[in-house]
């Protein structure tokens, strides 16, 4: 087990399309790049994961990310804090494992509220302070009065001394300076950090008692679960692991059988498709023959009707031939009607009837007789064609039936067995998957048991540590003046490293506990550049004291925009600061900017040399030229809005692609 007091290992943003992972290491971690690429969001999300109230997210993030997980190590234990980014009031989940093992662990629920309900889940603050083994105390809201009300100290109060957001760096309002109530509380928090609260000894004693009680409770829980596991003959985790592995192997094997079966079915169906196409072509030919048959039958009807018509006509023409000998138009030339004396008008008759000559009638009879013969022949040839077509159709029908039989045989002999084989494999895979789910659940139960056991061990260790602390406190409680003197000297050496001119009147104010330079307290310093240096330095020297004294503070700091008001940042920043006293000292001197980085890197090294760890998370628009070369290893993320040199375009590095695709 490593001995990191508090280490952020990585931040994982679980997205709709992919996960976005930002890894962190012990020591200095630098995130830099163009504006609007999501750098600051990383620190904001970390702050939120550690109990921050709510978070404003960029459109890119809120459209891409479902929830976030912070993988960290506290006092040697692995934890993953998972929190909904959009519902700050929802309970926070804590898994006692690293990120990769989340699926086989049950999470504990933590309330995001500092004042957790009685009987409800612990608050995130209680969890963090407990794991860090810091005493949980109540601070007097008005320390000079004995009757003052008390407020519970929370991890949020400590976070203030670890996180400078973009607005707080170099700001006169850092740590809510100027807010009387908060200032009073901050002073009490400061005292808490350095163990110089009046009530310190009693608090530690009370903490030991509380932890002992918690230990007893935990022991009884563990014994109940152990009994349960024993009585139900629960396999141990090794056995379950072996079973999970076997299950996996078997599933893999059967899945590959399944693939083989599918392939075999496909290759077998080659003959199936041949039969199928034979069947199709037979059907098509039958249709064509049917059409031919219908056409021929129609022609036969047409020819026969016409032939009969001609036969009739021939008879009629013969009758005309006979009668026109006897009765003719020539016979009535002189005739007139006896009643009206009107004469028969030949012209009128020939307007209404045709009167053909004998020759013409004779010719027509011959021509029709010939045509009757021709039509008979034509009709006969069509009848022959119909007989042929019918024969063809019956042959095609035989062919078709043969294809149908072959197809049926193919289906039942060649494909059906594969289908049943496939069904068997599918069923087997399904049942194995179910079993896998069950095993995972069992694993989770066992892990829960292990987790409690681990908690118990940790609790025992913590009680031991607290006892040692109590002993030390009782022997030599530090005095406030001692601590302030040490801090002043640390501040002086910091400013020396930064190379601030006129280093006189440097101290930590006895009342406000804020830095003083040239006898001017932080909030009254006019130079924005100097305030930036001091605000970062203040956090840095408190971190250094964490190393020296083991104070009650996080051993990590986060600074958003180190170069604010100094060195290489845009002139706009200086204007915004509203200062007139920079005399060019801070805006012109990139060396000061570089020196801040150097100091922080040295500080991290100091921790390392002592066999301890700290984390310094820095966000900046740029880094000093030398630092970027010399300390490449510290850079955990570097974004370029335009993707220059193949750099990711931001935290949500697939956003541009996504937008392009969507358009």
């Amino acid at each position, binding site marked *: 087990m490593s001995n990191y007091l508090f280490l952020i290992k990585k931040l994982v943003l679980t997205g709709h399309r992919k996960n976005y992972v930002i890894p962190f290491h012990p020591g200095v971690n630098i995130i830099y790049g163009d504006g609007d690429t999501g750098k600051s969001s990383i620190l904001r999300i970390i702050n939120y994961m550690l109990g921050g109230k709510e978070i404003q997210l960029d459109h890119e993030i809120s459209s891409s990310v479902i929830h976030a997980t912070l993988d960290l190590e506290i006092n040697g234990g692995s934890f993953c804090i998972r929190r909904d980014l959009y519902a700050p009031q929802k309970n926070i989940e804590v898994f006692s494992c690293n990120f990769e093992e989340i699926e086989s662990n049950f999470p504990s629920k933590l309330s995001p509220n500092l004042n957790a309900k009685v009987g409800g889940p612990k608050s995130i603050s209680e969890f963090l302070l407990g794991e860090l083994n810091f005493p949980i105390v109540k601070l007097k809201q008005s320390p000079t009065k004995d009757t003052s009300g008390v407020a519970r100290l929370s991890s949020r109060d400590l976070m203030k001394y670890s996180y400078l957001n973009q607005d707080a760096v170099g700001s006169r309002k850092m740590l809510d300076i100027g807010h009387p109530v908060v200032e009073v509380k901050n002073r009490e928090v400061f005292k808490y950090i350095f163990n110089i609260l009046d009530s310190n000894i009693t608090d530690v004693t009370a903490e030991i008692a509380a932890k002992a009680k918690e230990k007893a409770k935990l022991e009884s829980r563990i014994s109940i679960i152990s009994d349960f596991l024993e009585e139900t003959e629960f396999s141990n985790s090794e056995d379950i692991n072996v079973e999970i592995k076997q299950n996996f192997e078997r599933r893999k094997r059967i899945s590959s059988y399944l693939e083989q079966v599918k392939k075999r079915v496909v290759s077998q169906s080659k003959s199936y498709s041949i039969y199928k196409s034979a069947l199709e072509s037979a059907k098509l030919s039958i249709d064509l023959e049917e059409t031919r048959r219908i056409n021929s039958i129609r022609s036969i009807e047409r020819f026969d009707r016409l032939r*009969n018509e001609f036969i009739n006509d021939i*008879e009629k023409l013969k009758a005309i031939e006979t009668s026109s000998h006897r009765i003719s138009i020539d*016979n*009535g030339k002189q005739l007139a009607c006896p009643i009206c004396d009107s004469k028969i008008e030949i012209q009128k008759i020939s307007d*209404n*009837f*045709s009167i*053909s000559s004998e020759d013409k009638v004779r010719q027509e009879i011959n021509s029709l007789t010939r045509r009757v013969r021709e039509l008979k022949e034509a009709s006969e040839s069509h009848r022959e064609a119909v007989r042929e077509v019918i024969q063809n159709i019956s042959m095609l029908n035989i062919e078709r039936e043969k294809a149908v039989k072959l197809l049926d045989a193919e289906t039942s002999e060649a494909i059906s067995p594969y289908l049943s084989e496939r069904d068997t494999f599918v069923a087997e895979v399904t049942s194995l998957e179910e079993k896998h789910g069950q095993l995972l659940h069992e694993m989770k139960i066992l892990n829960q048991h292990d987790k409690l056991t681990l908690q118990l061990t940790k609790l025992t260790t913590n009680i031991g540590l607290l006892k040692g602390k109590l002993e030390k406190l009782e022997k030599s409680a530090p005095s406030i003046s001692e601590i302030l003197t040490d801090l002043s000297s640390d501040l002086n050496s910091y400013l020396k490293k930064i190379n601030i001119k006129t280093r006189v009147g440097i101290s930590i104010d006895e009342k406000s506990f804020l830095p003083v330079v040239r006898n001017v307290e932080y909030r009254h310093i006019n130079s924005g550049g100097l305030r930036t240096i001091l605000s970062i330095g203040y956090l840095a020297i408190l971190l250094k004291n964490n190393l020296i004294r083991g104070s009650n503070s996080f051993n990590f700091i986060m600074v958003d925009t180190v170069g604010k008001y100094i060195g290489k940042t845009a002139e706009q920043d200086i204007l915004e600061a509203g200062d007139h006293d920079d005399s060019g000292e801070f805006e012109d001197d990139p060396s000061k900017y570089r020196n801040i980085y150097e100091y922080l890197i040295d500080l991290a090294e100091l921790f390392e040399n002592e066999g301890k760890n700290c984390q310094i998370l820095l966000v900046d628009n740029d880094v000093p030229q030398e630092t970027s070369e010399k300390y490449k290893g510290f850079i955990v993320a570097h974004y370029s809005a335009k993707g220059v040199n193949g750099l990711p375009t931001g935290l949500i590095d697939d956003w541009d692609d996504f937008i392009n695709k969507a358009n």
Partner: protein
Amino acid sequence: MKNNLPFLEPRNELSLNATVVMAILIGLPKTRSGKLVLNLERLQIYLFLILNPTTLNKLLAKSNKTLIELREDEEYSVTSVSYNFDPLFGREKMQLILQFLSANGLLESTYSKDYGFVFNLNSKGLETYSEFSGEYFHDLSKYTEKASQLQSSSVGKLNSGLNQIIKDGG
């Protein structure tokens, strides 16, 4: 009507029409009681029916009479499926046929109280017709024999029967 077609239309020939009318005048001149009935209207209807024996059969069937036994060539022809009812309308053609028969000295006309002017063939007409021979004349007597079953029906009844057949699509 001048025939400009490259073939003859026997139905349109004056001789054929005159011959058929003569066959009607011989076969169907009187009722059973001996009354002459063939006025112009009835002649016109009979001419149409005799030229279209399939329609004649339909009309007989409608009146529950015995049908003509038609041969395949009579029944299964183009005419039997493509009807032309025009000859039923307009009296001019029948007038011309009667004028033609009369000019040949074959017709006799009487006035009847019930039917107006009615026609029959005179002795010359009967003699002339008896000299005609051939397949078609057999057919004609076959038709008139069965058509005689309609003699007792009035012209109005025959017309309404034909109207019905026209409505039914021929």
